């Protein structure tokens, strides 16, 4: 305290004012983030309380899964094919220099299954499905459709949120498997065209025993965790929308930023924790 008083007496008034403003805005930002995390925790507890088989609206779950998965197939497929090919393009010069073409199948498989497949799919789903989910929920909030549900004695968390939450997690896991397969196909095709490695040679490298089931499980565990982040983030920011149509835009932006940040942070920790 004494230090601060001494500092304030030595600094010019304007500089001291700027410093106080900076600290206040930093503190405000931290409090805002803490409040958001707390609100997400409350939403998660509400979702958990309504996630019993008896309360789960299966028809809504299936409807959302169909919608989310079908909507995502083209973009996930195209992204995966090119990603697999890019891995080979980047690796080809080095592999050819050392004559290690036989390792391409392993290298592409290891990278795609453990890291690239789940991560890129999560980012695609976050941008495509998560953003759409936030916009959908946000629009329902600002047009009083959520209040309309409450007025009909229908619990919005049970009816709107829980099916979307589980549908998004399941969709991301399924899309990751789809993406893994197509990325490997893309890698194998690129290997044949660019390096002259046959499909059979690629397959032999992939199944040489260097890739284990735990590598597949590693990627799938990540995809479920990423799905959890995208689902929670998109539902929270959708329900927290205020301020009409501009508010929906702000919510979508916040949801995508929070999802992407959460995905990368979680990826970092899971890469240590999951074998």
């Amino acid at each position: 305290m004494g230090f601060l008083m001494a500092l304030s007496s030595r600094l010019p008034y304007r500089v001291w004012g700027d410093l106080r403003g900076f600290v206040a805005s930093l503190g405000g930002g931290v409090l805002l983030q803490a409040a958001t995390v707390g609100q997400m925790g409350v939403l998660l507890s509400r979702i958990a309380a309504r996630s019993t088989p008896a309360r789960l609206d299966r028809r809504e779950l299936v409807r959302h899964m169909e919608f989310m998965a079908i909507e995502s197939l083209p973009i996930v497929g195209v992204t995966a094919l090119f990603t697999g090919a890019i891995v080979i393009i980047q690796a080809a010069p080095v592999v050819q220099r050392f004559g290690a073409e036989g390792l391409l199948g392993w290298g592409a498989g290891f990278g795609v299954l453990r890291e690239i497949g789940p991560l890129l799919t999560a980012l695609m789903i976050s941008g495509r499905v998560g953003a759409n989910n936030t916009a959908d929920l946000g629009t329902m909030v600002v047009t009083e459709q959520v209040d309309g549900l409450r007025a009909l004695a229908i619990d919005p968390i049970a009816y709107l949120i829980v099916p979307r939450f589980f549908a998004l997690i399941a969709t991301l896991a399924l899309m990751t498997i789809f993406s893994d397969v197509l990325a490997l196909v893309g890698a194998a095709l690129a290997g044949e065209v660019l390096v002259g490695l046959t499909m059979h040679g690629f397959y032999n490298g992939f199944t040489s025993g260097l890739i284990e089931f735990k590598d597949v499980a590693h990627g799938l565990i990540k995809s479920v965790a990423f799905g959890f982040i995208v689902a929670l983030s998109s539902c929270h920011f959708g329900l927290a929308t205020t301020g009409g149509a501009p508010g929906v835009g702000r919510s979508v932006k916040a949801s995508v930023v929070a999802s992407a940040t959460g995905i990368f942070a979680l990826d970092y920790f899971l890469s240590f924790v999951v074998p």
Partner: protein
Amino acid sequence: MMIAPLSKHPGEGDVIVRFDRIRKSFGDKTILDGVSFDVRKGEVFFVIGGSGVGKSVTIKHLVGLLRPDAGDVWFDGVEVSRLTEEEFFPVRKRVAMVFQYATLFDSMNCLENIALPLEKHRGLSRGAALVEAQRLLERVHLGRYGERFPGELGDGMKKRVAIARALTLNPEVILFDEPTTSLDPVSARRVDTLIRELSDTLGVTAIVVSHDLTSIFGIADRIVMLYRGGVRAVGDRAHFRETKDEVVRQFVGGFADGPMEFG
């Protein structure tokens, strides 16, 4: 849960809804500052007043969409303002609400919108709920529009679909939030007729938020006027026509000049 005796006035019917000294603020802006009035069973009761005076805020307290800072809200002898969200569900099955912008679900067609509460609360199968939804749609004279989505309907039609949806659980009270706002005069009178019919044929109590003078003097049994956070006047149509209160006279006369303060 507090229980209040129903007050009975000879020839005037039972009180089904009571707002008792309701106070409500948003931030530092006080909207309601001690609002009290009763609504009787089966009547068409209008809540009127200038824009921003708290008409919609008042009625939303009855279905728990807003909670009062102070005061009590009574429904059929039970104090409801302190019920939890889940405890409010039985009240909401007896008190339906038609919102200002209809709030139909965009992703469902009209029949599905109406069938939703039937499936959720009356345990009807999908097919049976759709049949019942069609019957309700015909009741509001929109039988041919079941397959249409809300975005394909005009405002008046949307409001009538919303009324059909509100009827699904056979409510005792229906809250109408500005049901004729933004409607052309013909659609507005159709909605008025529907509200009056519901009261006359089904005994439904209608609480209508409005500043549509034609509606007010066309179908209201009784009226309350809110002004500056409180109740300015309560009475029947004749009372409002003959009042000496200059503020009320300015409002019901639709005069630009007078003692009314806005904002």
